[in-house]
């Protein structure tokens, strides 16, 4: 288990302020946040490149706060691969083993690791001659060959094109399954979360804002920042009452969680049903409104509905065409109470 305990670190414009996280053995843990949130600094502090200004780091029970990077048994893979350009792929992968053992042993380990990443045929090439995806595979192999107790990935897919990114994403899932290594992966791309993460932490400005499973983060954000980051387009200010409903303007919305007093309500635009005909209630929230605008956007259609407050509904084209709705039409909206998540208003509320 990797425990980051109240770690602070200031490095000029980037910093960590009192960050605490714990990552389980074998977990695939993703840290998500915009540029400048302190994600890379967090990884580099875990890896031992920086010593924290305050706080402790524990790896499998051992306090490694003051252990130098080379003795931590933590692997690091950067977005830009950082393969040593003057060495072949083989020498890159074997780099960390060089001082340890006999050539035959190294050769065996390197080949094993290269095979795991499907780059066995590239061992004699130099990094400059490889594609981005191949370089990233080599960088991962170089880290894995050391059999690290934790593997840190710094936006490993960001520098790759769409196709390669998808392949390597699947590859990462496979490798995680095959090796069982604890992985901490940082990214600003929400897409990676659903395919890979067991749990996610959302960071912002050096702070961890929320931690949870992808589903939790996605459906139950704890702040406007997280809600905006995961694409919840319907954010309403309201007043919670004791009976589990929230008053938003003239509407009363049944939400999955109840907080009395001023609250924010978040409803995902994909979780709202839209119809010209009345919808069966079935315990759902039902709202009546008028279509303001219809914006086709790629394969999706974004519909804006005025129902006292402005609702945004996202449908597929196919789904939209079946509703037969046009701007100006009166429509019925329905969403489950579990689709309406309530959290205290204001920025940066802690979980």
């Amino acid at each position, binding site marked *: 288990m990797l425990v980051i305990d109240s770690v602070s670190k200031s490095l000029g414009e980037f910093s960590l302020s009192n960050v605490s996280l714990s990552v389980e053995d074998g977990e695939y843990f993703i840290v998500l946040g915009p540029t400048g949130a302190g994600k890379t600094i967090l990884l580099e502090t875990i890896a031992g*490149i920086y010593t924290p200004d305050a706080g402790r780091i524990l790896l499998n029970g051992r306090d490694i706060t003051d252990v130098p*990077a*080379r003795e931590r048994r933590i*692997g690091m893979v*950067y977005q830009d691969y*950082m393969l*040593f*350009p003057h060495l072949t792929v083989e020498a890159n992968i074997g*780099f960390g083993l060089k001082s340890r053992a006999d050539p035959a042993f190294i050769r065996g380990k390197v080949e094993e690791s290269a095979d795991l990443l499907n780059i066995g045929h590239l061992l004699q090439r130099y990094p400059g001659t490889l594609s981005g995806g191949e370089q990233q595979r080599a960088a991962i192999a170089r880290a894995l060959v050391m059999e690290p107790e934790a593997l840190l990935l710094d936006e490993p897919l960001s520098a790759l094109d769409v196709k390669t990114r998808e392949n390597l994403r699947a590859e990462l899932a496979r490798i995680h399954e095959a090796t069982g290594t604890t992985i901490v992966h940082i990214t600003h791309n929400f897409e990676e979360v659903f395919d890979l993460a067991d749990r996610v932490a959302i960071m912002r400005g050096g702070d961890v804002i929320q931690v949870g499973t992808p589903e939790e983060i996605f459906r139950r954000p704890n702040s406007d920042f997280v809600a905006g980051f995961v694409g919840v387009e319907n954010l309403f200010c309201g007043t919670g009452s004791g009976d589990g409903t929230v008053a938003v303007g003239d509407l009363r919305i049944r939400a999955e969680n109840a907080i009395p007093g001023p609250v924010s309500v978040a409803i995902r635009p994909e979780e709202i049903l839209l119809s010209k005909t009345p919808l069966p209630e079935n315990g759902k929230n039902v709202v009546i409104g008028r279509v303001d605008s219809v914006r086709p956007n790629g394969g999706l259609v974004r519909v804006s509905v005025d129902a006292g407050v402005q609702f945004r509904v996202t449908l597929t084209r196919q789904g939209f065409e079946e509703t037969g709705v046009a701007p100006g039409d009166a429509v019925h909206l329905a969403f489950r109470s579990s689709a309406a998540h309530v959290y205290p208003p204001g920025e940066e509320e802690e979980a």
Partner: protein
Amino acid sequence: NSSYFRMATVAVALLIAAFIVMVLVGVVTHSPPAVLIECFLSEEIQFAIRLSIITSVISTLLCILVAVPVAYALARYTFPGKTVMNMLMDIPMALPPLVAGVGLLLFFGVSPVGKSLAAAGLAFVFTPLGIIMAQFFVNLPYMLRVTRSTFQGVNPRYEYVAKTLGCTDAQAFWRVTLPMSWNGLLAGSVITWSKGIGEFGAGLMLAGATRMKTETLPLSLFLNMSTGKLEYAIAAATILIMISVVSL
């Protein structure tokens, strides 16, 4: 029309290029080839060539030896005095070598440190050793600049990765940063060497201008101009021009 401006600036450029080439070619073609070759083969010029090469190679090696650790410290670490250090590296862009030579002369000739060095057999004043010291002192900041910017050009994350793969700071430098810096170091060394060959002012002050003793190529040029032996001066100048052109 838009191309007038272009033509005007290019014309000035070509004019200046022509002027520089004419000045250099004027030197090389001044003596008849036979005279030039005779001078090349004279004992004095041969001595100057040998002394120049020996001193410049040694001073370049010293520059590399000192510049590599210092430049690495400047590129990677923060430490007290770093700002001053970086400023000192800018001074030689403006400090005349002649002044550096006077400074070295006073340091090695008058100061207690210099006197005890001389007593220990390390005499820099009016000796070939002084030439090496003069070249080293004047060229070190240039070598430092090149080396520092070379090291700065190597992303420190290469070293971070090396450390997570089991390297100490020194191993990470030796196995990663240094090999990635060869080209920059080589280019810097060549410039340093060729500047060392041409060094005049500081050497003149510290090592003096003694014929056949501290007579490097620039000092030979100076001595022979002073005594009116123009063809020897031209020979020395021609060799120096060739070295400059080749070392580019």
